[in-house]
């Protein structure tokens, strides 16, 4: 039991792990909801959730999305550099944890499949939620299908090249 739990934890290097040791009450999660709300507003107001913006990007007919992603990466990179350099702690005093990602074929095959879907739906997972909030009801089908896709990946995981 102990061992299998460790295995699960070992395997559980998803892209957005919670590394906080201190337990949070359920209500504490509302602060992440607030950040999500700001995020959804930014996505909508900068029109990143627009199918047209994604088409412009993949047709190289606008700098807009490249500007957004490029700026976000520069700001993120600088922040991570500063956190590491000054050993900035979390507000509850914990050391901030970073994860190294392991290279595998999934990043290429999975990445290509996601890219194909991204150009069709005009949305990566974040904008899917914001599009629904904007009243594009049909995107609930896209989201349900994305959940089904994730589930199917989980089902066939061991049979796929990795």
């Amino acid at each position, binding site marked *: 039991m102990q061992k299998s739990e460790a295995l699960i*934890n070992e395997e559980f290097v998803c*892209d957005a792990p*919670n590394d*906080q040791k201190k337990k949070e009450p359920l209500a504490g*999660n509302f602060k*992440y*909801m607030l950040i*999500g709300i700001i995020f*959804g*507003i*930014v996505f909508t*107001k*900068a029109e*990143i*959730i627009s199918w*047209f913006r994604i*088409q412009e*990007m993949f047709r190289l007919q*606008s700098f*807009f999305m490249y*500007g*957004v*992603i490029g*700026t*976000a*990466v520069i*700001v993120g*990179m600088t922040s*991570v550099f500063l956190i590491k350099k000054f050993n900035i702690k*979390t*507000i509850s005093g914990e050391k901030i944890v*970073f994860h190294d*990602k392991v290279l*595998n074929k999934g*990043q*290429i095959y*999975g*990445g*290509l*499949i*996601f890219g*194909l*879907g*991204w*150009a069709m739906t005009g949305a990566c*997972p*974040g904008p*899917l939620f*914001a*599009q629904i*909030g*904007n009243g*594009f009801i*049909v995107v609930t*089908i896209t989201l349900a*299908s*994305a959940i089904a*896709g994730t589930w199917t*990946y*989980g089902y066939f995981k061991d049979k796929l090249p990795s």
Partner: protein
Amino acid sequence: MLELIRQPWHWAVAGVLIGLTVPTLLIIGNKSFGISSSLRHICAACFPADIPFFKYNWKKEIWNLFFVAGVLIGGFIANQFLSNPNTIVISESTIADLKALGITDFTNLMPADLFSVENIFTLKGLFFFVIGGFMVGFGTRYAGGCTSGHAIMGLSTLQLPSLIATISFMVGGFLMTQLLLPLIFKLF
């Protein structure tokens, strides 16, 4: 002020705010930024079906579900209270290309030619909602992240796998847009 907020925001404003999400989540709760994980948590919470990939303590990651619920609410707030009074400005050449494919509506964030309820049970719906969505969910999980987890969080922490993933996302997008979409639109 409200007038200014209602206008479409500059890419640099959006980029800075999205980039700041990385340190904000780390500092307030030691959380790594990534959105596609939410889809996995939904599977783990609702349909684990004894699949090892979905057998983990999703409750520990519930912050991610609060976050995406927030994104949905944020979209609603922006749409209801801060929406742009003018039609979206799209590059002329993109409009010309899309018109050639048969898109006629350029007034909203999403073209009504594709993203409308009437298309649910049509071939358009099959491609743009069902197959497209499936590839987003399958591909992001296979790749271990999406634009947020790889392109933003991964590149911010200088991860080579994330650079490879990001390049693959872009290659997939170019392939779909340049080669496959013209074929798909011929079906309608």
